[in-house]
């Protein structure tokens, strides 16, 4: 039982590990070297832009004197006027679509989970996996062809006479639901699977009504998953840019569109720092979202076993 050939690297496993097995397993020295490329890459390609963003959002360089000083001016500007409108617009749109998608997604997921046909379940899950990916540019164009000014459904239903306009807040809501609902289905199906039929039977046996079962057992068990799903959808809708950019241009005030405008130089000189400050606002909001989501996900995963 001697270690035959500890290979080129000096040491690891040679002395201590042969007899003790699992308990006295020695960790190879320098194993962390394997993680080094990743950490260096992240520092360079993620840390550097993030640092530049932070620096640009919080400092002002005097073009004449060449001095740089810390200032809250850009952040303050990003929270005023049209910029504030775009931030609240984004938050409203994300909250509305995430809320709707949570409710509708749970309904669909429950319909699938309680169905006895396995084929239906497989089909819905696969379709959800694809549709949740179907965001961005292709989605925008599919809806232009459907509900746009000369879209097929618009012409069949004469929706324009009814005041329908795809290039609006409502139109964006309809489009965002198209990828948010499948995402919610994917998130919540495992949680609904975790609702064991025995719990329901136990509740009914002890005299509970269906309503009481959902009120006292079902929803409390599902709550972390539902809230986590909502938060995930919110973040996803909040960060979305491509769909809105291809579709509405500037007619709906969204923070991602404002940032893109400022970056591509469609506005006055000196707006770059405001774009950076707006990005920082977005990061703060997305960070809050993640701070809620991750613990919830950990909590809900208890029931998914």
């Amino acid at each position, binding site marked *: 039982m001697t270690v035959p050939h500890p290979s080129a690297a000096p040491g690891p496993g040679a002395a201590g590990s042969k007899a003790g097995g699992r308990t006295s397993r020695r960790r190879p020295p320098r194993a962390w070297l394997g993680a080094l490329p990743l950490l260096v890459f992240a520092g360079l390609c993620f840390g550097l832009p993030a640092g530049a963003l932070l620096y640009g959002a919080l400092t002002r360089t005097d073009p004449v004197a060449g001095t740089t000083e810390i200032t809250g001016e850009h952040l303050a500007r990003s929270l005023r006027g049209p910029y504030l409108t775009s931030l609240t617009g984004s938050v409203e749109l994300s909250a509305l679509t995430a809320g709707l998608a949570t409710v509708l997604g749970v309904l669909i997921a429950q319909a699938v989970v309680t169905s006895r046909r396995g084929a239906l379940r497989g089909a819905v899950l696969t379709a959800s996996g694809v549709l949740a990916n179907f965001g961005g540019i292709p989605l925008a164009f599919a809806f232009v062809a459907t509900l746009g000014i000369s879209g097929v459904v618009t012409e069949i239903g004469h929706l324009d006479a009814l005041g329908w306009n795809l290039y609006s807040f409502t139109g964006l809501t309809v489009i965002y639901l198209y990828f948010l609902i499948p995402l919610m289905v994917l998130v919540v199906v495992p949680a609904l699977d975790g609702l064991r039929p025995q719990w329901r*039977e136990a509740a009914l046996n002890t005299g509970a009504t269906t309503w009481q079962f959902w009120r006292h057992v079902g929803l409390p068990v599902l709550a972390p998953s539902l809230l986590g799903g909502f938060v995930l959808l919110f973040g996803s809708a909040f960060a979305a840019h491509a769909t809105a950019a291809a579709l509405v241009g500037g007619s709906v005030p969204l923070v991602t569109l404002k940032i893109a405008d400022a970056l591509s130089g469609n506005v006055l000189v000196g707006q770059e720092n405001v774009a950076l400050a707006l990005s920082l606002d977005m990061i703060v909001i997305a960070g809050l979202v993640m701070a809620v989501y991750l613990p919830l996900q950990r909590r809900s995963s208890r029931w998914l076993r």
Partner: protein
Amino acid sequence: MAALTPASTARAVAPVKTARRPRYWRGAVLTVAGLYFLTPLISSFVFTVQVPNQGLTFAAYSGILSADGFTESLFLSLSLAAATIVLALLLVVPALVAVRLGPPRLRAVVEIVCMLPLVVPPIALVTGIATVLRWGPDHFSRTPLYQTFLAVQNESFPVVLVLAYTVLALPFVHRSLDAGLRAVDVPTLVEAARNCGAGRLYVILRVILPNLRSSLAGASFLTLALVLGEYTVASLLGFRPFAVWIVSVSGAEARMSVAVSLLSLLITWALLLVLSRAGTGSAAAVPAAAPTPVPGKE
């Protein structure tokens, strides 16, 4: 014990009660959902083949291949995707193996580093990258480093996009591979292989990776879908891969842009099906991989 008897009677009663009621709402929900999700697909197809005053025509589809810039942009997107997949896997696989062999604190560090990009929306990342790229001409134009700035932004193969996409893909690649590695007892496998005389590289290539086949495929697919559909970063940095091309032709060739959008959905669908067949856990692969691609679609 006493509870068992009522349980069985309840079960005998329950199907009568539950079988009738849910059938209506379940059917209604699924029908409405089906209509909502199928209508855009069907009417997109109708939109592309039906031209007013001309009747049915497939010109929108047959014209795609010869369209100006289609091949270049698609080729650019595919090669960016290939490079991103290779880079992301090269970074994450060794890190995750190291996490399982090294000190426990490393695990938390790697997880946080890989999850951080989730907090930064693509548009915020691109503002940061644009700022950094502007430093090139501003501060480094006299140093050898300037050549690096130029090379990274080479029009024919913008490395900066590969780097940005790898950052965006890190959370999904990490989650997919981490789930795969959870089923593998890495330290035992590594020790066993090393005791038999295998080198480090050999252990990773011939022992660890074959165990990860399905999650590697999952990670690669997600990255591919992310890169093919990415618009925000590329358009704001001024490059012209596939998604940017679709937008640029939409003004003149509305039908063709819809046709290409539809095709890209079908291709994604086919890839996902292939993937779920290829992986061993066909049913598990989809839900495990799918909830992750959130910011990717932008």
